[in-house]
């Protein structure tokens, strides 16, 4: 279980997270929704031990994020929205570099290559890859440390529908492997397709959390309609 309790994060005067609390079940795919600037990326950055926070408590699979940051980083992986690898290196060179950094095993390396269908393009320079292939490489790097939890920060931005579906299918595979996935996206249909649970945040606060089906099925609605209703009422 990942427990976030009353977390506050300030950037100067601005409260990026304002007493946010939520819980993410181990082994689930959790959709984190919110408009731009709601605090999603800040939360992912804190959960991964990259950014500090001002107050509150966070526990990742029983580990205190303030005391066990190093260990939490070892069992976590973040897939940033940006293509965070080296364009001038080949796919293989990129994977080998990040594998060595994390002391990844050959088994993990092979698994990351296989799940993301990178075998045929291993010797290609990253700069020459298509948008979808670049996204897959970005994700594969995040799998090298055999993480217990992966944070996806809008991983399908700017790619074609076919590549998007491939990525979504691969994320479902991670769940089968027992990996917990936290997924942020602006595409509601993606969240509906892969997520078990959803949390909606606005202005740094959690405004709703629950199982995806329960959230809007009774209202004969869609996730998109429900999200818009919630965030608009928050803005009023």
């Amino acid at each position, binding site marked *: 279980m990942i427990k976030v309790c009353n977390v506050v994060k300030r950037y100067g005067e601005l409260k990026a997270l304002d007493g946010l609390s939520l819980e993410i079940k181990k082994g689930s795919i959790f959709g984190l929704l919110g408009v731009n600037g709601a605090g999603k990326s800040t939360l992912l950055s804190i959960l991964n*031990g*990259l950014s500090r926070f001002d107050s509150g408590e966070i526990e990742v699979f029983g580990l205190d994020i303030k005391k066990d940051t190093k260990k939490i980083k*070892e069992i976590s992986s973040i897939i940033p929205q*940006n293509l*965070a690898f080296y364009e001038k290196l080949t796919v293989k060179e990129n994977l080998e570099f990040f594998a*060595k950094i994390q002391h990844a095993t050959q088994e993990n390396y092979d698994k990351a290559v296989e799940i993301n269908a990178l075998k045929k393009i291993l010797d290609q320079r990253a700069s020459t890859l298509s948008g979808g292939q670049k996204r897959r490489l970005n994700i594969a790097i995040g799998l090298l440390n055999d993480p217990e939890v992966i944070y996806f920060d809008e991983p399908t931005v700017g790619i074609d529908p076919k590549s998007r579906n491939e990525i979504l299918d691969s994320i479902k595979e991670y769940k089968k492997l027992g990996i917990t996935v936290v997924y942020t996206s602006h595409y509601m249909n993606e969240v509906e397709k892969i997520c078990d649970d959803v949390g909606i945040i606005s202005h740094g606060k959690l405004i709703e959390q629950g199982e995806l089906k329960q959230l809007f099925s009774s209202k004969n609605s869609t996730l998109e309609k429900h999200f818009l209703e919630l965030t608009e009422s928050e803005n009023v």
Partner: protein
Amino acid sequence: MFSAMIKKEFLLVLRDKQALMALFIMPAVFILIMSVAMKDIFSQKALSFDVALVDQDKSEITNTLVNDIKKDKAFHIVKKDDAKFVITFPKGYGDIENTTTPKKAQISVQGSVKSDMIEIFKAKLMNHIVKMKLSVIKEKLSEFSDEAANAVGSVTLATKELFALKYNKQEKVPNATQQSVPTWIVFGMFFIIIPMSTIFINERKQHTLSRLSSMNVSAFSMILSKIVPYIFIAQIQMWVMVAVGMFLVPYFDTPALEINGSIAALVFLSFSLSISAIGVSTLIAVNATSSEQATTIGGILNILFGAIGGVMVPKFFMPEMMQKLANISPMSWGLDGFLDIFLQGGDILSVMNESLALLCFGGVALIVSMILLRKRIEEGL
């Protein structure tokens, strides 16, 4: 982990054609151009003037004078069109009886000749004219008194016999190659800023640094992994420039570079210089918001360090005040050290001061860079 980071850095630099141009081609071309262009200015050959002689008088006196001048190695006799100085002895010049309206020798000088060279030329020519006049006076006096004639005859104008010249310090002056090679090694090494800032800022913008941080890579490791490859690159750069000076420059009728000092001193000094250049580059890369900004700031800083430190104009050409000011530039420390090795046969001890100054300067810049990078990582870069 560390070896992987070093390998990555090497691959990125080696695949950056612009960086390689700035690090290797640019200084090598500069060494070649500047060594050839300045070979005459730095030449230690005896002074020689291109002179044409016109004897309109054709007297015994002018004939003796012309022959005397021709024998002097300071005067290189050429055709009138090629001469920088044309000396004309007009008709009646040799008429020594004419004391009321004596004829003067005419000297025409090419416009590009500097005034100090004209003064030296005048002094040299005066020597021959005075000698000729003394010879005439001696001849005249001999008709009246042999004693007086001998006294005049014993007057010498040879500088060796008139005064003794002694240098206070046995310091050698560099030739064009000895000046150009260290200059462009130092200047070229500081161009590490181009690949370093480009790679570093791309890593920051693409969130690769964040990703590395999320993989437990510390700011210390990030910076250290950049230092090691650039130390190797700087060493390669230095030896390529030395090779250009030793083997390529002589093909252009310019003196080859000679290493009179110790190789160990050369390695130690270039290592210290590379730490200094890497320190400045890292500091700029950590603080700049874009690679364009980093290369602009780095370029301006390099030119300023170079202008102050004796890269653009050699320090010994500078006035004393500028020579003192030059000591604030790390490029000047490096340059002094290289000149010590190439010219004065310096060893590690003789470049110790310059090397330690460079190491301290680079070390402080690197420590500040690490602190700033750590802070930036904590703030989410």
